[in-house]
């Protein structure tokens, strides 16, 4: 069994009027199938309203499936007795860094999760130190979160999740509210955790550039997985991506246009270096 296994997953948002009668049903997840292996770096792509955030909330048992099954680390998310175990296994980082920091001192915020699960005091301090060091925020442990930049706040939020020692971290558009520098900072921290600590990462985003280094990519649209594969494979299908309202990275776009103009480039060029190499190859 895979670490995360979604089968025929359906989630419907039911809209009710004041008397509680059903006014309408919006299908956010439509028979979704998805598998993630332990230790992978997975990216889930999709434009607004594709159901990617709804899916993320299922992984953390914040939402329950309407139909179908979802197993996280072998645990069924529909089982309410397992809710807290699931939340410990799969931690979640949200979009707005301000709205997920609870305490007014960095280290106390990181300690919030372990406090909730009843970790002994000494171990809390060990975990806080380990997680803050892992995201490079140890020097700021006594600062107020209000004085940090967006990227730093988001790293504190990641440390807060790390302190619960999860096997998997789900990041729901963690960079959407950050400037380019903050974005790089956060992604570097996430990749570091994936490589050195072997934490499974599920990165939910609509920025193509962030997907380039992932192990495997799922593209969602209208609550379904419409494309999947490694980044090179996904980005070689520029036209299909456009159909799903997604842009490709600028370099990939450039390579694609050059190819259409007749240059014999290969598909799925993701970085500037790759493009330079390809052009070099053609010239010789």
């Amino acid at each position: 069994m895979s670490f995360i296994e979604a089968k025929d997953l359906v989630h419907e948002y039911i809209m009710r009027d004041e008397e509680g009668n059903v006014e309408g049903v919006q299908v956010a997840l439509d028979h979704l199938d998805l598998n993630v292996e332990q230790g992978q770096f997975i990216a889930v792509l999709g434009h607004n309203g594709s159901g990617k955030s709804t899916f993320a909330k299922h992984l953390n048992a914040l939402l329950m499936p309407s139909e179908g099954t979802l197993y996280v680390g072998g645990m069924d998310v529909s089982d309410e007795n397992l809710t807290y175990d699931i939340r410990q296994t799969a931690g979640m980082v949200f979009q707005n860094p301000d709205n997920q920091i609870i305490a007014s001192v960095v280290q106390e915020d990181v300690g919030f999760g372990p406090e909730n699960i009843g970790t002994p005091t000494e171990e809390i301090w060990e975990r806080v130190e380990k997680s803050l060091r892992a995201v490079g925020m140890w020097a700021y442990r006594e600062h107020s979160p209000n004085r940090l930049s967006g990227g730093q706040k988001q790293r504190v939020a990641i440390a807060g999740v790390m302190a619960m020692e999860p096997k998997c971290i789900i990041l729901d558009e963690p960079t959407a509210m950050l400037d380019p520098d903050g974005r790089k900072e956060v992604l570097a921290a996430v990749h570091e955790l994936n490589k050195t600590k072997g934490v499974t990462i599920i990165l939910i985003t609509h920025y193509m550039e962030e997907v380039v280094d992932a192990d495997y990519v799922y593209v969602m649209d209208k609550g379904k997985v419409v494309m999947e594969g490694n980044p090179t494979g996904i980005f070689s299908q520029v036209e299909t991506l456009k159909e799903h309202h997604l842009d490709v990275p600028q370099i990939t776009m450039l390579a694609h246009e050059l190819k259409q103009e007749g240059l014999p480039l290969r598909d799925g060029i993701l970085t500037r270096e790759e493009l330079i190499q390809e052009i070099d190859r053609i010239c010789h």
Partner: protein
Amino acid sequence: MLREITLGQYYPADSPIHKLDPRTKLFTTMIYIISIFCFKGPVAFAVITAALAMVIYLSKVPFSYMVRGLKTIVFILIFAGILNLFMTPGRELVSFWKLTISYEGAKNASLMLFRMIYLIIGTSVMTLTTTPNQLTDGLEAALKPMKKIKVPVHEIAMMMSIALRFIPILIEETDKIMKAQMARGADFESGGLIKKTKAMIPLLVPLFVSAFRRANDLALAMEARCYSGGEGRTKMLPLKYENRDRITYVISIVYLVAICVLRRFPF
């Protein structure tokens, strides 16, 4: 402009008062408040003054910081003082025009002024030497017995600390909304009280909407981190009594007893 407001007037310093357990400080402050309302006679007054001076000296907080708290109530002090001075009937002390100051009036007014001033200074020693977080922790621990009568002590403390965390964020947001509304021609400055109050509506509505959105996000984030109320939670910074706390308890009880005994001998 709103950003300059700082909340919680904690003054960081390395002093024996700062190191005390917040519960000890809460208890001592209570004792102190009782003492300034029940003492009698000049000797007791001297004892209170000496105790307060000692604590201020030990706290290493500049005296000007304590006086700062008085500024906000100067008007109330003057008003209450004047009322007490002229309105208390009794033996005539001075009399001019239609106003009479009685002997009792002068005594009442000075007593009242002294009590108010000592109250403010005494309590600000506590807020100046205790961080807001310690204060909420202390309150939670001190109010724990109330749990038996179903007072949601942990929830109240959690709400207080979250409020402290979000006040600067909301102030910043108010600033932003204000500027956005001003850019579109809103006027917050001119007009009378009613016009000014009305002008606040386009500020308050978006602020409330955003506060609710933030609250929703925060609740989700707390749930995602396994928060499930006060049951089964451990503390990162558990409150622990040290020897200095025990000594402080003893001293403050002796102090209260002394004040009460002095009531019997009103020198």
